[in-house]
């Protein structure tokens, strides 16, 4: 690497870094993106839903050329218990038309395409390079050093290096995450012929289905599973809080096997072949756990800043938005020739004005509530399943008797006061 100076050095070629790079290039600033993987996408994992709005703000016609799988036209939520499932779904043709709402994607392919667009816009993406640490002068970040000892200088460094952002730790922005701040997700991509996918999920050629599931399937751990249809494969996975894994000693690869054998899932993937097995940490801490987002000469974006709305399972769109807002901040700082934390603090203000921090703030009490309301992953789904069974089973008993039994079950779980408090807690946690 030559000893030249860039306006901005971006670490990590994921959605945050690439969005920032693209925005900077379009504004005529000089930037470089450094990626540790063999190619952009080699190290990235996500459940698999990409939201059109975020990428569309950057590349409006993305859906005409990007390697996407299926537009998501149907979303279902399933509560899985023992051998049973309770379901709710919504399907609309509206989501099958431009500008589309979301797509299933395979990130290794999508990131490769996005990186190419950034490259064409004029920002070089350098792969196979690990950034070891930041360079500081007079306590402000002035560049980076690679593991090979090469140095690169820039007015500003963007840490877009994901949940394992060793760089922002080394820059002194925050300490290590806690096990309750992250969920460990494991995923398999299972190949299945297109016709089978469309038959099993009741889809047309240009339609896709996204299913989230929760319940006793996570064995009392705070967790959510997902199943997304791709063109000719299925992304199936489950994520649970790392702190719960740490306590329960459940093995994630055993858990995903149990998911695969649940009657509500099994037939969907029958005959499908596991093509890839993946694991990744997902930020779950929410608003109260957000680390400092800037310091002199440096900004943190995407997962590296824990910018994930886990309630709505949105992450890549927050990463893209934060990348764009970080780039706009750098453009402003360049105009002022001032990259001090005072100028860069406008990054936080921009995030606060956008959906990114507003959504995180709305659900700020949720992570704590999910820790304490463990019944959500044990007693409640069990109760819901039992109520459904009781209502639907025709067994010659009078309905009034059934109703009594259901009411009894409900109040065995909580008193009226207890249920009131539970509802109030959840209502308040979203206000």
């Amino acid at each position, binding site marked *: 690497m030559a000893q030249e100076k860039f306006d901005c050095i971006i670490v990590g070629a994921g959605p945050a870094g690439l969005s920032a790079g693209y925005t900077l290039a379009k504004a005529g600033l000089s930037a470089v993106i450094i990626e540790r993987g063999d190619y952009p996408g080699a190290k990235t994992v996500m459940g698999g839903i990409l939201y059109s709005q975020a990428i569309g703000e950057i590349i409006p016609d993305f859906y005409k050329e990007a390697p996407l799988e299926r537009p998501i036209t149907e979303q279902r939520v399933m509560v899985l218990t023992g051998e049973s499932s309770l379901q709710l779904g919504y399907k609309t043709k509206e989501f099958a038309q431009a500008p589309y709402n979301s797509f299933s994607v395979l*990130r290794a392919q999508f990131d490769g395409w996005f990186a190419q667009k950034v490259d064409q816009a004029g920002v070089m993406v350098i792969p196979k390079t*690990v950034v070891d640490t930041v360079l500081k002068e007079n306590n402000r970040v002035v560049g980076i050093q690679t*593991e090979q000892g090469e140095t690169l200088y820039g007015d500003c460094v963007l840490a877009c290096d994901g949940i*394992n952002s060793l760089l922002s730790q080394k820059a002194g922005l925050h300490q290590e995450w806690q096990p309750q701040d992250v969920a460990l997700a494991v995923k398999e991509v299972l190949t299945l012929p297109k016709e089978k996918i469309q038959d099993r999920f009741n889809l047309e050629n240009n339609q896709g289905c996204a299913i989230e599931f929760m319940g006793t399937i996570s064995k009392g751990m705070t967790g959510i599973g997902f199943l997304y249809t791709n063109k000719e494969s299925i992304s199936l996975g489950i994520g649970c809080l790392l702190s719960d894994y*740490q306590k329960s000693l459940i093995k*994630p690869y055993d858990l995903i096997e149990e998911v695969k054998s649940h009657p509500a899932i099994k037939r969907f993937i029958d005959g499908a072949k*596991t093509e890839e*097995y*993946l*694991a990744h940490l997902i930020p779950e801490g929410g608003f109260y756990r957000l680390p400092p987002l800037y310091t002199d000469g440096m900004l943190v974006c995407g997962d590296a800043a824990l910018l994930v709305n886990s309630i709505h399972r949105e992450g890549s769109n927050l990463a893209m938005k934060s990348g764009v807002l970080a780039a706009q901040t750098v453009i402003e700082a360049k105009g002022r020739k001032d990259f001090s934390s005072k100028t860069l603090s406008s990054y936080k203000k921009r995030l606060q004005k956008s959906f990114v921090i507003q959504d995180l703030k709305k659900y700020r009490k949720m992570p704590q509530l999910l820790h304490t309301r463990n019944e959500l992953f044990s007693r409640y789904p069990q109760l819901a399943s039992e109520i459904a069974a009781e209502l639907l089973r025709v067994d010659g008993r009078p309905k009034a008797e059934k109703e009594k039994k259901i009411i009894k079950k409900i109040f065995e779980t909580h008193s009226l006061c207890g249920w009131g408090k539970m509802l109030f807690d959840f209502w308040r946690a979203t206000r």
Partner: protein
Amino acid sequence: MKVEEKLFKTKFKADAHEHCHLKIKDREICLKCDTKPCTAFCPAQVYTWEKDKIIVGYENCLECGSCRIACPYYNIEWRYPRGGFGVQYRMG
């Protein structure tokens, strides 16, 4: 499907042993650790306990970072594999 079979489906470019990116800081601490959660939560079964010793199969590491955060004694030194090495997701 066993974890070994799962890992077989994922592509890795393993680096030489001297560049191993996972290190146990103090092996004595593992002896004192009751539950050894790393042997359970690691999604790639990188950590196994064999004959009073923790074995680190770094070649199969999926680079999720769990062990760095959830080792109860913060006894695992976690770095990225060298540039271009380690897991190579083809689908993601």
